[in-house]
C-alpha cells in the first residue's frame, strides 16, 4: 500500500513540476514573441553590426530577435535539416541555387501579398526576387561582381595594355608566365585560377562569366533543358582547358586550391598576372593583406559579348514563420535605407534601396553604376544545386586532363536533362 501511495505521489509531483503552467509560473516573465533570423557571414563581425539594427525592431515591436550566423560551408544543408526538424528560421537568406528546392517544398513564402506599390519602387533589385511564379525574396546582397584582378607591375613589365578580349588575355598570360629567378622552374604565372574547390561555388567566377562572354548560357529559355554544352559552351570549356594544357599559364597546384586561396597564395604575393574572384576581395583581402600590391580590376573580358557573375542574394520569409506579418516587418526594417546605410558602413557594398548613398569600394563605383548590364545573377532554374554540382565535377575532370571539353559538358548536360525531364 505504501509503495502504491509513493508511486501515486511521485507521478503527481512529476506532473506538477513539468506541467506547462508550472513552467510558466517559474519563468513568469512576460513571454515575448521570438523571430529567428539565419544569415551567412557577409563580412567580418556581422552579428555586432546587425545587433543595433535588430534592437530597433525589438523595441518598436516588443519582440525578441535571435540572429544566427551560419557558415557558408554547409549553408543549404543547415536549412534543409532545420526546416525538416521544425527548427528552421522565420527569416532566411538564400542565393539563386537554393531557391528551386525550397520553393518546391513549400518552405519559402510568396511575398506578393505583403508588398506595397512603394516597395516595388524602393528596392533596386526587386525584380530578381520574381521566380517560379511568385516573389520569393528581397535582395540584400548584390552588385558584388566576379572580376579579373591584374598586377599592374607585371603587365607593365611585359609591355602590354589591359586585356580586352580572350586573345589579349591569353597573350598577356603567356608572356607573364616566366622563370623570374632563373632556377629552371617557372615561378610567375599568367593566371592564378583555382579548380580545387570541393563544391560548385567557384563556378561563379570560373565558368558563368566566360560562358556569357562566349554567348552561351546554362538553361534554355523554357528551363526544361540545359544549353551549356552548345557551341558557345564548348568554346568556353576549351578556352579554359587550353589555358592549362596548351598555354600552361596556370600554377601547377591549380587543381588543389580554390580561387580565394589562389588570390591569397599566388596573386597577392605578386606571383601571377591575373586572378579572378569577387570584387569585394579587393578591400577585404588584397588591401588588407597585401598593401603594397599594385593591382587593377577588369569587370569582364569581351568575346561575343561581355558578362560576369554577380549574385543577388535575398532575404526570404519562411513558410514556417508563426507571425508572418511581424517577420516580414523585420525584413523591411533590415532592408530599409537607414539600416542598409548602417550595415554598408561596416561592409562596403553598393546600395540595395533607393536613397542609400554609395558606400562601396570607390574603385568599383563607376563600373557598377555604368555597366549594370554586364554583371548578372544566375537564372533560377529547377534542380540548380544538382546541375551545378555535377557540372563542376565534370569541369574539374576536364581541367585535370581526364576528359575533353565536349565529353565533360555532354555528360553534365545528359545528367541535367534527365533531371529536368523528371
Amino acid at each position, binding site marked *: 500500500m505504501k509503495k502504491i501511495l509513493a508511486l501515486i505521489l511521485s507521478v503527481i509531483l512529476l506532473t506538477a513540476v513539468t506541467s506547462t503552467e508550472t513552467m510558466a509560473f517559474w519563468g513568469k516573465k512576460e513571454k515575448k514573441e521570438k523571430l529567428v533570423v539565419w544569415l551567412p557571414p557577409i563580412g567580418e563581425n556581422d552579428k555586432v553590426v546587425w545587433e543595433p539594427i535588430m534592437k530597433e525592431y525589438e523595441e518598436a515591436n516588443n519582440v525578441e530577435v535571435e540572429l544566427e550566423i551560419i557558415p557558408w560551408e*554547409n549553408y*543549404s*544543408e543547415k536549412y*534543409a*535539416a532545420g*526546416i*525538416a526538424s521544425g527548427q528552421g528560421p522565420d527569416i532566411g537568406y538564400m542565393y539563386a541555387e537554393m531557391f528551386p*528546392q525550397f520553393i*518546391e*517544398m*513549400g*518552405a519559402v513564402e510568396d511575398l506578393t501579398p505583403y508588398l506595397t506599390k512603394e516597395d516595388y519602387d524602393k528596392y533596386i533589385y526587386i525584380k530578381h526576387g520574381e521566380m517560379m511564379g511568385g516573389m520569393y525574396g528581397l535582395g540584400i546582397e548584390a552588385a558584388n561582381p566576379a572580376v579579373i584582378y591584374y598586377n599592374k607591375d607585371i603587365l607593365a613589365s611585359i609591355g602590354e595594355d589591359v586585356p580586352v578580349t580572350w586573345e589579349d588575355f591569353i597573350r598577356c598570360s603567356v608572356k607573364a608566365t616566366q622563370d623570374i629567378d632563373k632556377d629552371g622552374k617557372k615561378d610567375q604565372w599568367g593566371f592564378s585560377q583555382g*579548380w*580545387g*574547390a*570541393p*563544391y560548385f561555388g567557384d563556378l561563379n567566377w570560373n565558368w558563368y562569366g566566360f560562358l556569357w562572354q562566349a554567348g552561351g548560357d546554362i538553361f534554355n529559355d523554357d528551363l526544361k533543358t540545359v544549353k551549356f554544352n552548345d557551341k558557345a559552351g564548348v568554346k568556353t570549356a576549351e578556352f579554359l582547358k587550353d589555358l592549362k594544357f596548351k598555354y600552361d599559364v596556370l*600554377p*601547377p*597546384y*591549380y*587543381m*588543389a*586550391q580554390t580561387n580565394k*586561396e589562389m588570390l591569397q*597564395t*599566388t596573386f597577392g604575393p605578386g606571383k601571377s598576372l591575373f586572378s579572378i574572384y569577387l570584387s569585394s576581395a579587393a578591400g577585404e583581402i588584397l588591401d588588407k593583406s597585401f598593401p603594397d600590391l599594385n593591382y587593377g580590376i577588369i569587370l569582364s573580358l569581351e568575346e561575343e559579348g561581355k558578362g560576369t557573375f554577380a549574385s543577388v542574394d535575398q532575404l526570404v520569409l519562411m513558410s514556417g514563420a508563426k507571425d508572418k506579418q511581424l517577420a516580414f516587418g523585420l525584413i523591411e526594417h533590415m532592408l530599409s535605407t537607414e539600416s542598409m546605410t548602417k550595415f554598408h558602413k561596416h561592409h562596403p557594398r553598393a546600395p540595395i534601396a533607393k536613397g542609400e548613398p554609395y558606400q562601396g569600394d570607390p574603385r568599383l563605383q563607376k563600373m557598377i553604376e555604368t555597366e549594370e548590364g554586364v554583371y548578372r545573377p544566375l537564372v533560377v532554374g529547377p*534542380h540548380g*544545386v*544538382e546541375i551545378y*554540382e*555535377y557540372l563542376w*565535377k*565534370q569541369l*574539374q*575532370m576536364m*581541367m*585535370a586532363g*581526364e576528359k575533353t571539353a565536349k565529353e565533360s559538358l555532354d*555528360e553534365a548536360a545528359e*545528367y541535367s536533362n*534527365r533531371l529536368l525531364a523528371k
Partner: protein
Amino acid sequence: MQNTEILLIKEKSKKRFCIKRLVGKGKPYIFIGPLSLLLFTFYVIPIFLSIYFSFTDYNIIKKPEFIGVSNYSDLLLDKTFKASLRNTFLFTLGVVPAQTIFSLVMASWLVSRGKSRLTEFVKGAMFIPVISSMVLVSIVWRILLNGEGSPLNLILNVLNITQPNWLGDSSIVLFVLMGITVWKNTGYFMILYIAGLMEIPKNYTEAAKVDGAGRWNVFYYITLPLLKPTTIMVVFLGMVWSLQTFDLIYTLTGGGPGNSSMTLVLHIYNNAFKNLNAGYAMTVANILLLFSSIAAIVQKSFLKKEKSEVY
C-alpha cells in the same frame, strides 16, 4: 476449520511462489528492456524506415510518394554512385591492411621495449590524432598539403623533389586520404593490440624461447595466433569505419577533383542534404548497410570460430 486455513495458507504461498518465479524469469527482460527499447527505436526502426523511404520520392519535408523500384534502377545510371562504390572499396582495401599492420608493428615494438620515456612519448604521440577532431585534422592537412607554399612542399622543394599535387591530382588523392586515415586510426588500433599482447601469458613465449625459437618464430608461431581475436576485431572495425568514411573527405576534397575521392557516405550526404533527395540517399544507404552487414556477419562467424580454436 484448521484444515481450511492450512489449505488457504498453502494456496497463498503457492501463488506467491508462482509470482516470484514469474518475476524471477522476467528479471533479465526487465534489465535489458530499456536498452532494447533504445536499440529498437534508434537502430532497428531507422533501418526499416530507410528501406521504406528508398521506394519513395522523399525530400525530407514533403510527404513521401511511392515510386516503386525507381530509385534502385537509377543507381544503375548513376556514374557518381559507381565512382563512390569503387572508391569506397579501394579506400577500404588500402586502409584496413595498412593500419592493421602498422598498429601491430608499433604495439609489438612498444611492448617489447617495456616502459620507458620514449615508449610513453610514442604512445602519446600516436594517440593524439585519435582524440583530435577530424575537421581540425582535415584543416591542418589541407594547410600541410595544399599548394606551393605548404610546409610539406617547401621541404620537397629544398630536397629538389618534384612536388606532387597532393589534393589536386585525381590519380593520387585517394591514396593521400588513405594515408591520413591510417595516421589517424593507427593509435587506436595500436592500443587494442597492446591490450591483446599484454594478455598473452609470458610462459608461452618463454617456453618457446627455451625450445630455441628466435624472435621472429616466437612472434609468428606464438604471438600472432594468440592475437587472432584482436586482429579480427581490428580488421572488421577498420573495415566498417572505412566503409563509413566521411568527415575527412567532406572537409578536405568534397569528393573531388571530379569524383576521384567520392565515397558512398559522401554521396548519401550530398543527395540527402544538398540535393534534398532523401529517398535516393536512403537507397544508396541501404547498399552501404548491405556491405556493412556482410562485414559484421563475417566478423561474427570468425570470432565464434576463433573462440573455439583459441580458448
